[in-house]
């Protein structure tokens, strides 16, 4: 037997996310307006969003910025060859840079030996490269490749 109460709660969460994932109403009382559309109270909308944030299902309730449009044109994926035993130490150092927006360890293959990925956003390539230089100095790592995006074929936020 499935817990129907639990399922019902999840259904409303999914309905809520689906309703607002293209954008919240930009009004004085957005949560009240969402509630009215979904037939739930403003309080319930707020509580559900709080829980979704607390549980990590929603990372943030925030603006997705068209970074290119505001002049943040450079987007460098810098991949590093890091000895397994140093991954934790350098991952933390890299993540500490404001311009590093993503930092992940990923698997290697015989023809792909770079295991730490950093995404760096900046106003110019030079700004990205200055960050890479600073990472090199702080970590002592020198085996890396910078991959700039030459063309954006697709970029959309994750939807459910």
């Amino acid at each position, binding site marked *: 037997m499935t817990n129907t109460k639990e399922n019902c709660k999840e259904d409303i969460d999914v309905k809520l996310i689906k309703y607002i994932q293209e954008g919240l109403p930009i009004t004085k009382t957005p949560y009240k307006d969402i509630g009215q559309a979904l037939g739930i109270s403003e309080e319930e909308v707020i509580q559900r969003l709080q829980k979704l944030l607390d549980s990590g299902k929603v990372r943030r309730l925030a603006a997705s910025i068209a970074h290119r449009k505001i002049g943040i044109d450079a987007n460098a*994926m810098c991949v590093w060859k890091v000895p397994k035993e140093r991954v934790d130490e350098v991952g933390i150092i890299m993540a500490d840079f404001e311009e590093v927006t993503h930092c992940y360890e990923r698997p290697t293959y015989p023809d792909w030996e770079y295991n730490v990925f950093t995404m760096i956003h900046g106003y110019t390539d030079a700004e990205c490269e200055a960050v890479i230089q600073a990472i090199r100095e702080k970590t002592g790592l020198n085996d890396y*490749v910078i991959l700039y995006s030459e063309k954006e074929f697709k970029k959309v936020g994750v939807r*459910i």
Partner: protein
Amino acid sequence: MILHDTDRKILHRLQSNLPLVPRPFLELSRELNIDEDTIIERIKFMIENGFVRRLAPIINTQAMGREATLAAIKVPEDRIEEVSEIINKYSGVSHNYLRKGRNTNIPYNVWFTMSAKDDEELHRLLKEIEDKTGLTVRSMPTVKKFKIGVRFKIY
């Protein structure tokens, strides 16, 4: 079109959570010292003019029970358009870029992220792309996450 300082201030703040209170923009107005009506009007302007894609929940794919990966393919120069079109058709693909190594030549040039309802489905879709293109797809899922949180320095 250039954004003025008020817009930049608002934009910077909007990258962090919108307050979960009945009048969130009123709360922002106190934080930023800009009145509520102006904040609302400027946000609408920035959405309509494409500076802000959306003000919405940013979903954690994995926490929602989905599986995701970063995948890379070595695509011959003359097939890039064709292959990227095949990849873009999948709704689980959120990013797809042509990338070139700056300081070193690297063979992997098309990079995309894909999510699916579970691991099995994810692998099935990647295999389908391999079959359709005749190219090997390298899946590089996250082993460890050190940072995720795209907040841009706005100045």
